Structures are given as structure tokens and as C-alpha cells.
């Protein structure tokens, strides 16, 4: 009885896990990171450049369905959104659907968090999700 229950629980967890990601597969060794700024950087300029780092995968603009590609989304001062639906489009979730690999950012003074998430042609995160480390920058 106990064993059946455990089995059912494991199955449920697996279902729950697969539901928490989109349907577009990505290469296992793909790696997403913020090339610049580095975690903890203090920025004194009004505007600064953010480099989107991506390895073992390519970029395609939104709406373009090609295996092993996606496009960048920058999360600003927010957590990772639900992984099985379209990434919101607002000032905390910036879309780079034109295939950009960098951007200029202007943020008010203070501490801010930045994190990248790659999504498919329909802005839905990949399976498994591809998310960068979350970094903190301080604007002076």
C-alpha cells in the first residue's frame, strides 16, 4: 500500500514537473548568462550596456520557429515567471524579439536585479527552462 502511494506520488511529481516548462526542447548543454555587467557591479553612467551570453544555441527572432534557437528576455527586479506560459511583457519583463544580443538599459538609482531567460518563438520558456544566474547591480 505504502509502495503504491509512493509510486503515485512520484508519478504526480513528474507530471507536475513536466507541466512547469514549455514544449520547445533545447540542447542539454545550452548555457545562458549575463556577459556584462558582473554581479555586484556599481554603475555610475545614466545608461549601461547589458550583454546577453548564450552558448551551444542560437538566436531567432520572435515568431521564427527553428530548432535549437530562442530569443532573449530580461527580467528586471522580478522573479522567474511561470515556466509554462508566455512571458509577460512589461517593464519588469523585457522582450528582445528582434533577435538582439545586447541592450542599453537605464534604471533609477539603487539596487536592481537582472536575470535572463530564453524563450521560444511564442515567448514560452524552453524545456528544460534556460535561465541565467540572477545578478545584482547598483546604480549610483
Amino acid at each position, binding site marked *: 500500500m505504502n509502495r503504491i502511494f509512493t509510486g503515485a506520488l512520484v508519478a504526480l511529481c513528474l507530471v507536475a514537473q513536466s507541466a512547469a516548462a514549455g514544449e520547445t526542447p533545447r540542447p542539454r548543454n545550452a548555457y545562458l548568462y549575463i*556577459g556584462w555587467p558582473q554581479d555586484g557591479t556599481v554603475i555610475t553612467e545614466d545608461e549601461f550596456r547589458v*550583454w546577453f551570453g548564450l552558448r551551444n*544555441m*542560437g*538566436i*531567432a527572432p520572435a515568431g521564427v520557429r527553428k530548432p535549437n534557437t530562442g530569443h532573449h528576455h530580461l527580467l528586471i527586479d522580478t522573479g522567474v515567471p511561470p515556466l509554462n506560459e508566455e512571458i509577460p511583457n512589461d517593464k519588469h519583463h523585457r522582450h528582445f524579439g528582434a*533577435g*538582439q544580443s*545586447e541592450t542599453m538599459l537605464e534604471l533609477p538609482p539603487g539596487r536592481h536585479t537582472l536575470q535572463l531567460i530564453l524563450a521560444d518563438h511564442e515567448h514560452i520558456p524552453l524545456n528544460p527552462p534556460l535561465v541565467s544566474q540572477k545578478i545584482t547591480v547598483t546604480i549610483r
Partner: protein
Amino acid sequence: MPRLSTCLAAAFVATALTAGPAVAGSTPAPENAQVYIIWPKSGRVIPGGKFWLRMGAKNIGIAPAGVKKKNTGHHHVIINAKLPPFDEEIPSNKNYRHFGGGQTEARIELPPGRHTIQVLMGDHEHIPHDPPLYSERITVIVPPQTSEAGSTGTAQ
């Protein structure tokens, strides 16, 4: 005399204008677009010769080869070679490497010696833009392999 130089200047400009369209492809490059090498910096010494080349693109997006989208292109890496003709498809061989998968980083492996690297963007058909978008040509140095450096790489 000033009249002659003006005349010569005008002739030069006229030649430049007529020569212009023939030396580029037909896909327009967005205004202010720029292609550059983020890493390595020119003159960098790379022990072992294996590294990730990071390719930068300002004011233009990346699209895989075959995808025709305005204001996009894909990267080509030129290793130890000159810029190719701008009005035809970029060659595809060991000196001209295509990143038609929309990659923004390229795994490069070079033997010991001095090498030049330059990035050139091509459109959906691998033809450079008008005006062409290419990076500065950088030099990297791979030092000779030493016995304690391990057995990776090819000995020359």
C-alpha cells in the same frame, strides 16, 4: 590650380558613388548597426588555443540563415583571411566559418602561432549587408605547446 583640385575631387566622388552599389549586397543594414568582437581583445595570448569567441552586434538582431527578417543577419568568422567580396555569398571553409544557427558565440580551436580573427555579418543568403557590417580584425597568439601543458591540441 584650386579649380583643378576641385575638379579632381568631384571626379573622385563621382567614381566613389558609382563604385558604391557594386561592392555590397542588397540587404540594407540598419542605421548605426555595428558588429564587433567582445572577447578576446586584440593581442590576447591564449594558452592551448581553445576559446569561446564572443560576437557583438549593436542595433541589429540575429536570425538564423534562411530567415528573411528586416534588421537581422547572422555572424561569420574569418580566420587568417581577408574580407571576401561584399556582393556575393561569403565562402564557407575553414577560413570563413558560418554561424547560421544564430549563434552569438563560436568555439574556436587554433594551433600555436599568430592568428587573425574578424567577424562579418551576412544576410539570410550569407551576403554582406549594405553597407557591410564587419568587426575590427584582431590578432590572437597561441603559445607553443610545452610538455607539461598536457596532450590537448595538435602539435605543429
